[in-house]
Structures are given as structure tokens and as C-alpha cells.
């Protein structure tokens, strides 16, 4: 490449492209990123992959579509969120602009993010209000088996995560149940797949909550300093003083067990590190000239904090967020293992793990090995991605030979 051409590409690479290039230098990073994407797709499409209701079935000559009819509001929410996220990601990867609502969006600007979040939130509310919860107790498999119905096309793993089959409890892996069954006869593979939804959604939502709280607290403490910072830091120290896990299990002891509560609890106990990062960055940045310029222009406080300073301060928090996700997944698994997490029949990896040693002392290895591997690979993938991101965004590391 001629000297001029190389110079222009170097000048032209955006920060994001630079990080991407550094990140992908290691193949392990790329592999783990692909795994993370795979898990994401698995979680989104779980009801299509493992479901005991067939896609299509013919009963008495009429075609029914039980699987599609029985999709729950939470499924629709997840689809909506996934579509919006993918649209944002793909839209930014393309070199040309892509319309999103009223604004153009490409890999250089961040317009449309607010719109996306709004779409997801409003959509979620509408879905939960308007889509009815169906519960179809019809056992399509028996119908198909005994010939009452014909032409049934089942999902790839034809089991439901809540369907109990007491006749086949605690079976080791076989050709029927590839990873065995648990103590109520549910297929382990199916529960693992649906469990990924729980783990990932808890991970993302909890981290989202902790990032938002952390940014708010950190920004205010860091920007104002003085006695606000003094008092605020005492409060942060108090939150940090109680060991996090203890705090979580204490809170779960007092509040009813539910999916939403777990997300909130993990998020509300994990924001302190984010707050400290943001506070440190804001301390550094608030004396910079561009902040003085914004203040002298008379911009409102929220604009100064969030449109001007925050984009410069947010990098360590984003890196920390990946570790937060892996940590949230781990905490959720631990809680479910101890019996304080989501309640059955909601599938959770930790809960399956807790069944590994039966009450009679038998070691049911398939109930220990597979969910353990699932947690291990997921947590490791996020950790590797987090480490890769941290190395890619740390300017000092490139100087170390």
C-alpha cells in the first residue's frame, strides 16, 4: 500500500474500528464472541428449538399451529428486543446509512439508540397488556403417537421444559433424552436451552440496572465533589461494606421469589463498582476545557453530564459490564442452586445443578455435568470477551512488547 493510502486509512479509522481490530487479533476473542452470539440466538429462539408443541398438526383434517398459538407475551417481548438489537447492530456494521425512524444511522453516530430503547420499552408494555396468556394443556405428542392426529412437525427437541413425565425420572442420557431427565422427568437439554433465556435475561437486565444506577450516582458525585461527594461516598461505602452475596441472599430471604425480583436485586447490589469508575472519570474530566465551555454556554446540567462528559467516561464501565454479565449469571445460578432463585418450573441452570446429588446420596452425574458446563462456557465466554475488550481499549498495553 502506498504511503499516502496507508496514512489516509490510519487517519480515517474510527475508534470503534480500531477497537474491533485490536479485539479480533486474538482468535480466542473472536470464538468467544461468536459463542456469545450463539447463546443469544439460542435464547431468543428457544421456544422454536425445544418445545413439546408441534409447529403444525392435522387433527380431523384441519391444520392447527399449536406452537405459534402458544407463544407467551414474554416470548414476544424477547423477539421484539432481539429484532431491535439486531437492527441496531447490523445497521452500524454496514458502511452506508440505514434509516431508523426519523434519523439516519450508521457506524459513526449513535442516533437512534434512544428511539430503540423507547420502542422496546413501549412495545414490552403493550405486549404484556394486550397479548393473552394461553395455556394449552393438550398433549400433542400422545395424539400424534396414537394416530388421532397426523402430519405433526415438532421442534428440533420435542420436549417442553415444564412438562413432567414422572415415569421417566432421573434417567441418564439416552437416545430419547439426549442429556437425560431430571427428578420430575423433564428433559434436561430442553431445560438447559430454556434456562439460557433466564440466565441471559437476568444477566443483561441486572447489569443494565447496575450500570444506570452506577452512572447516575457516579456522575453526580464526581461532578459536584465537595460535601455531596463526601456524603455520597459514605453511602457507597456502606453498600460496599456488606458482602454482596450475603446482601443478595438476605434480600431474597425477605422478598418473594420472582424473576423480576432477582433481576432487580442483583442490579441494585452491583452498581458500586460502576459508580466508582464513573466518579473517578468525572473527577478527571470536569476540569477539562470542553466542560468549562459547555458550562459557559449555559447548557442544562443533564446535557453537560450526559451528552458531553459521559461519552468520554463510559469506556471502563462498558468493559466492566461484560464482567458484570458473567457475574450476574453466576450469582443467579448460585441463588437457584441454593433454592433462593427462580422457582420451578421456570428452568434455571443452577436449579438443575442442585439436583445433581439426590436425596438418597446418589450422584446423578448428568444433572451435574451439563448445567455446570453450560454455566462454565457461558461465564468463560463473557469473561474472555470482557478481557479482550479491556485489552483492546487500554492504550498502554500496546506499548508493552
Amino acid at each position, binding site marked *: 500500500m502506498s504511503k499516502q493510502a496507508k496514512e489516509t486509512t490510519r487517519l480515517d479509522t474510527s475508534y470503534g474500528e480500531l477497537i474491533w481490530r485490536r479485539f479480533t487479533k486474538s482468535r480466542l476473542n473472536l470464538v468467544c464472541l461468536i459463542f456469545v452470539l450463539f447463546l443469544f440466538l439460542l435464547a431468543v429462539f428457544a421456544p422454536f428449538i425445544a418445545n413439546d408443541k408441534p409447529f403444525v398438526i392435522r387433527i380431523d383434517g384441519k391444520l392447527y399451529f399449536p406452537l405459534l398459538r402458544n407463544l407467551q407475551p414474554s416470548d414476544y417481548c424477547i423477539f421484539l428486543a432481539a429484532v431491535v438489537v439486531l437492527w441496531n447492530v447490523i445497521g452500524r456494521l454496514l458502511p452506508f446509512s440505514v434509516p431508523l425512524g426519523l434519523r439516519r444511522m450508521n457506524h459513526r453516530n449513535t442516533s437512534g439508540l434512544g428511539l430503540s430503547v423507547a420502542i422496546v420499552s413501549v412495545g414490552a408494555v403493550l405486549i404484556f397488556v394486550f397479548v393473552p396468556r394461553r395455556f394449552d394443556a393438550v398433549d400433542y405428542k400422545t395424539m400424534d403417537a396414537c394416530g388421532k392426529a397426523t402430519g405433526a412437525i415438532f421442534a428440533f427437541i420435542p420436549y417442553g421444559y415444564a412438562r413432567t413425565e414422572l415415569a421417566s425420572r432421573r434417567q441418564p442420557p439416552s437416545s430419547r433424552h439426549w442429556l437425560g431427565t431430571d427428578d420430575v422427568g423433564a428433559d434436561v437439554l430442553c431445560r438447559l436451552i430454556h434456562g439460557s433465556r433466564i440466565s441471559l435475561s437476568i444477566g443483561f437486565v441486572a447489569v443494565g440496572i447496575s450500570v444506570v444506577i452506577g452512572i447516575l450516582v457516579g456522575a453526580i458525585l464526581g461532578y459536584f465533589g465537595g460535601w455531596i461527594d463526601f456524603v455520597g461516598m459514605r453511602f457507597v461505602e456502606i453498600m460496599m461494606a456488606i458482602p454482596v*452475596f450475603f446482601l443478595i441472599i438476605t434480600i431474597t430471604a425477605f422478598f418473594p421469589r420472582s424473576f423480576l425480583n432477582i433481576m432487580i436485586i442483583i442490579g441494585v447490589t452491583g452498581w458500586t463498582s460502576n459508580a466508582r469508575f464513573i466518579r473517578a472519570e468525572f473527577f478527571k474530566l470536569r476540569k477539562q476545557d470542553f466542560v468549562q465551555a459547555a458550562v459557559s454556554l449555559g447548557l442544562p446540567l443533564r446535557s453537560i453530564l450526559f451528552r458531553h462528559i459521559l461519552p468520554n467516561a463510559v469506556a471502563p464501565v462498558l468493559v466492566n459490564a461484560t464482567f458484570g454479565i458473567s457475574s450476574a449469571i453466576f450469582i443467579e*445460578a448460585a441463588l437457584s442452586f441454593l433454592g433462593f432463585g427462580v422457582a420451578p418450573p421456570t428452568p434455571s441452570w443452577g436449579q438443575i445443578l442442585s439436583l445433581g446429588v439426590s436425596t438418597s446420596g446418589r*450422584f446423578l452425574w448428568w444433572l451435574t455435568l451439563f448445567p*455446570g458446563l453450560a454455566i462454565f462456557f457461558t461465564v468463560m465466554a463473557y469473561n474472555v470477551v470482557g478481557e479482550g475488550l479491556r485489552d483492546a481499549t487500554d492504550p498502554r498495553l500496546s506499548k508493552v512488547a
Partner: protein
Amino acid sequence: MTTYIIRRVLLMIPTLLGITIVVFAISRFAPGEPVSFTGGIGGQIDTGQTDVTSARMKLYGLDKPIHIQYAQWLWRVMRLDFGDSIKHHRKVSELIKERLPVTLMLNVVAFLIIYAVSLPVGILAAVKHGRFFDRASSAVFLMLWSLPVMWVGQMLIGYFAGPTFKNWFPPAGLSSNYAEQLSFLPRLADRLWHLVLPVLCLTYTGFAYLTKQVRASVLNNLQADYVITARAKGLSEPAVIFKHVFRNSIIPLITIMATLLPAMLGGSVIIERIFSIPGMGLLAFEAITSRDYNVIMAVATIAGILNVAGLLLADIAYAVVDPRISFVSAI
């Protein structure tokens, strides 16, 4: 120096008060009342005995306004009176006196092992950074860090302490049933034998975390200017590392000591549950499943106090080791 310590202790007090407020608030603002347990879980069974319920509420002081309840509770806590355990029907402070040493012993042993392994490995990885040892140990520790504790614990029991595979270690407890009849040394050996698996579980996550911190700190210092000065004086490389780099590198690690201990306390809950070790973690677990509120609050408070005490110790150690910390400096 003494003024520094006094300052630090004084700053601890609002934090400690804050902990008690948080713990108390959680317990009181949660839905449900403690006494409803007697009416079935979740208070579903209506015993119809309202006067019994109100009498019990009076007994536990639950009918007074909330700040009075807090003040009363705080006053009792300061005298180390945490009330009675609903489940065990004993004083909570007695329970804690029994269980706390067990957990502390477990954690301290694990702590020492973690430091004994991580320091040399971290230093070596930093000195040979970029080369095979560094990358291999990084990869190994990354994997270890991602292993979920309950999985490892259960696998260890299943494969090494159970009837199905190997039976090398005991699956539960701190000592065998016949331990009291043994003399000192065999009893110690028996205790150690029981500790192997739980300590293994507690330590491996710590390895990953601490080795990475050690490596980062040493690497940071290896690039420092004073290292070039030391080499320019003609010091050999091992002398440079041990006389110069090491002392500077351990300074940030002292604060980490303070954060490692509470993390391990949390992990204790899972490990004590898996291995049935009668420590604070198991106490907390049982208390939560049986809604033994006094015990829960006591454990949370004590965990917080221990944590703050650890931070204080770390601060003092930091000031002792780093001459740049002036004792009259700001908070």
C-alpha cells in the same frame, strides 16, 4: 500514626451505623411479618388466633413505631444481643460464637494458600510476560475463574468423596464421628483431611483473581523509571525484582486483601452448604430457608462489621508499607 488510626476508626462509625440501618430496613420493609411463619409459610393458614398473633407481636416488639424498633434493636446489638433464634431456640450470639470460628478458620487457611500460590506465579508471569508461562497461566486461571463453585464442589464430592467413583475424601462435615476420642495429632489430621475439598473449592477462584492483580501490579512496576535506574546501578535482575519491584508491587495488593475476604465469606455460604460444614454460611442458609429473621440480621450485620474491620486493617497496613501516605493527609 495514632491520629491516623483514630481518624479511620471514627470514619468507620457512620459506615457501621449505615450497615445496621440497611440491614434493619431490609428486614422491616419486606412484605410479610416474622410472626406469620407460625401460621404456615406465607401465612396461608389462618389460625384465627388473632390475640396470639398480637401477643407475639408485642413479645417481639413489633407493635412499636419503626424508629423505636430500630433504636431498640441497635441498642441490643451493641451489647451483642441479637435475640433468639426462632428455629434453634437458642440465643443467636451463642450460635454465632460457635459457628464464626469455623468459617474464619476455613477462610483464613484458604486465604493463606491463595497468597502463597498467587504471589510467586504472578511475579513469574509478569517477569516472563508474553512468553509461554505467562500465556499458559493466564489461560488456566481464566478457566478456573469461570468455573462455578457449586459445580466444582458437587463434582468433587461426586467423583472423589462418594460411593460411585473414588472415595478418597469425606463428603461432609468438619470431623469424623469418632474424632472426639482421638488425641491431638490424629484429630488434627482428621480435621485437615476433612478440610481438603472445601478449601480447594474456596481457593481456586481466588487464585485467578489474585494472580491477575499481582501480575498487573508487577508489570506496572517493571516499566517504571526507577527500575531502569536500579539496573543502571549494576544490580542483577533478581536483585532488581526482589529489592525494588516487589516492595512497590505489593502496595496495591494490600487493599485487595480487604476485598478478597468478604468475597470469600459470600462463597462460604455455597461451600458450607455443599459440604455441610457448620459455619456462618450454613447458619445463614438455614436461617433464610426457615425465615429465622434474628439470625439473618445478625449474620448480615456481623458480615458487614468484619468487612469494615478488614478494610480498616488494610488501610493501616497500607499506611505502614507506603511511605508516601502521610498520616495527616485527607481522607
